[in-house]
């Protein structure tokens, strides 16, 4: 497969007011570079997806943007540049990450999990979590039914909803989702993607990392393909969805099955 170079690649021109602009982000684990000069842009109200094989550096990229991992490069969020992103500051400024492993507080109730999502707002004196809680419950009625249950005893789909709901408690401008469909049944995957679309309608910008490439490309406006730590391809999501190279790389069934895909 030929890899497009960074210079000749198109940029996310459809992003009118960029909420997030990442330039030449690099992350190293010891002597190994896991992410090399990755540049991405998320526009206001956009859904942008990053797809790529396991081990390509997708999770690393989200962690670095969020400030969980140390990195080199530039991260500009909501108009101002972060020299060294710090998690608490990013949360306070309206960025939240729903991590791949959910990272729930298993031995605490669903409601406590949710309320903790508003911790940073509470700390800054914005004590409106009771109201936000009702909004999240309206979006996920199931969570309201299970409000007193321990998070650790819930099913996979409910946990993912709780993880998303908890992130929403921070009233984010940018929501980053790492593999939200991981290990979930089709019905629930559909529900999650419905909610992603719904959130965009409400004005939340979304950066979505998915290995379910097809589903991600269907909801996204713009997409990046990450391979061995580098952005290999990018373009409007619907274009990439039809790009034989993407199909070959992700689905591995070769071009001959494209016909089957479109049926």
């Amino acid at each position, binding site marked *: 497969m030929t890899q497009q170079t960074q210079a000749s690649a198109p940029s996310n021109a459809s992003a009118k007011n960029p909420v997030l602009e990442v330039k030449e982000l690099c992350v190293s684990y010891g002597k190994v570079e896991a992410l090399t000069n990755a540049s991405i842009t998320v526009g206001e109200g956009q859904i942008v997806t990053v797809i790529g094989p396991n081990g390509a550096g997708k999770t690393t990229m989200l962690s670095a943007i969020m400030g969980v991992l140390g990195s080199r490069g530039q991260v500009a969020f909501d108009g101002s540049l972060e020299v060294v992103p710090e998690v608490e500051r990013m949360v306070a400024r309206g960025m939240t990450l729903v991590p791949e492993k959910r990272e729930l507080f298993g031995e605490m109730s669903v409601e406590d999990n949710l309320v903790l999502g508003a911790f940073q707002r509470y700390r800054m004196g914005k004590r409106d979590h009771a109201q936000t809680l009702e909004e999240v419950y309206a979006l996920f009625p199931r969570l309201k039914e299970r409000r007193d249950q321990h998070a650790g005893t819930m099913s996979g789909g409910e946990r993912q909803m709780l993880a998303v709901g908890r992130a929403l408690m921070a009233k984010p401008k940018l929501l980053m989702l790492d593999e939200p469909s991981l290990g979930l049944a089709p019905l629930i995957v559909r529900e999650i993607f419905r909610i992603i679309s719904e959130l965009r309608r409400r004005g939340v910008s979304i950066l979505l990392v998915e*290995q379910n490439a097809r589903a991600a490309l269907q909801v996204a406006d713009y997409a990046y393909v990450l391979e061995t730590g580098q952005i290999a391809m990018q373009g409007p999501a619907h274009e990439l969805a039809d790009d034989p190279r993407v199909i070959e790389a992700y689905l591995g069934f070769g071009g001959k099955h494209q016909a089957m895909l479109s049926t």
Partner: protein
Amino acid sequence: MRTDRLVLGAFLALLLMVPAILSPYYVTLLNYIGLYAMVALGLVLLTGVGGLTSFGQAAFVGLGAYTTAALTTATDLPAWLAWVGASPWFTLVAGLLITAAVAVLLGSLTLKLSGHFLPLGTIAWGISLYFLFGTMQSLGGHTGITGIPPIELFGWTLDGGGEIFYLIWAFLLLGMLTTHNLLDSREGRAIRALKGGRVMAEAMGVDTGRARMIIFVIAALLACASGWLYAHMQRFVNPTPFGVHIGIEYLFMAVVGGAGYVWGAIVGAGVITVLKQWLQDWLPSLLGASGNFEMIVFGILMVLVLHRAREGLWPILKKLVPMRTIHKTIDAQAEPLPRRTLPAPGTLILEAKDVTRRFGGLVANNNMSLEVKAGEILALIGPNGAGKSTMFNQISGVDTPTSGEVLFLGKPVAGRDSREIARMGMSRTFQHVKLLPTMSVLENVAIGAHLRSHKGVLSSAWRLDRAEEARILKEAAHQIERVGLKDHMFDEAGSLALGQQRILEIARALCADPCLLLLDEPAAGLRYKEKQALAELLKRLRSEGMATLIVEHDMDFVMNLVDRVVVMEFGQKIAEGLPEEVQQNPAVLEAYLGGVE
């Protein structure tokens, strides 16, 4: 002449001359440094290399000192015991035996627990023993025991600081040589894997519990020997030098000097001892009060070292002497290690029957069955989260099925530990690479041959293992060449790209001479050429009769390589068959390509 040998030679020559050229004060100071360094050396092995620690080493020193003090001064010993007290050399053996017994007892209590229980346990037991020394009237209580005889060696009485100096430093250098040899051996690699590589080491057949016990006992014996020398140097013992705070000081010595390095023990003991002398003269007059104020400085110094230079002083000093890194030599003439006879192609190697695994309400695997035959590559594929890793864990014996069973060579895997499974001939790689980043590629791969070799601690310490070691290294080098990492053989494993680290894991697995290879996402992070090379290697292994199970994501890689495919989704098998068949299967296409609507 190599620079390192030159420096070492100069150091030894200086040591020989010390009693002749230095004043008794400095000889005594060096005697103490030697005694302390011996204890710190044990902590280098325990803490710096093995990742365990003890604040109770002073109590082991006390055991050595009190054993010899009590036996050599006692007048009313029962007849069967009296002969032991006749010579300090007998009491040294007695002290070492008692210490080993106590260390084994304490080790068996704490070493199975998480790492922090051991140090906490040692604080508690250090205090207990200290109070015991102080309260037992037969041991002289707080006044202690006087009149300990000097050591005699070939008719030479070591009753002065200048005489016992040679014995102390001979003991220390012997301890250092032994430790150095041990670390550069089969057992040494197992010990070095304790810090951050236990799961991997167990999968390669290393009994990490035993390895921990070994270093704990060695550290205790070094401390005991130091105590024996101390008692005969002072000719008097009381409980004070064996309290838990002195135990803490020993740890400071190891950490300040460089806990990961044999020479760090001397550097640390030297720095702390000299600094203590100096501060004890200087601080009380500065502060206008008397007391152990040097502890304030030591405490702060220690925190600063851990913040700023966690490796200690030795690596910094070492940079001052330019030394070439000396690579190991591979002896091409070494006899190859014995190999197992692989089962005939087509023999059933691995069989999973109706494996179901539940986690609470979650069914991670539901009625999964699969089989792998000799000379065949089977791929287990499925979307992320389909339950492949859970299945992999049950096959490799890390996890146990809720119902159903996994048979390897006809025997159930459940209930066996990783070591036993490795011994039966199953060898694996890890989804999240597990290697020892500061060790060379060669040494990492050599760990794989652990079960194919047998030399133990004593042979290693005294270099009786070299023939076998050459065979191990030759085998490791062979596997490294085979997987295409020859150019990186002497590089630090941590400096390889992620893809190459995965390949290293395959070489390590092959070094174990398995009949079943389990590979967890071997192609992740590899570039196109590397994937092709890996595929070639796996095909070659297949033609030799190896059975291989691959969990993989990369379809291209899988489809052009494997004989059969099992596809999983939501914990269940949704398809099985030849690659071409599976690619046409609508359920598979739906699982992989399934859209939103």
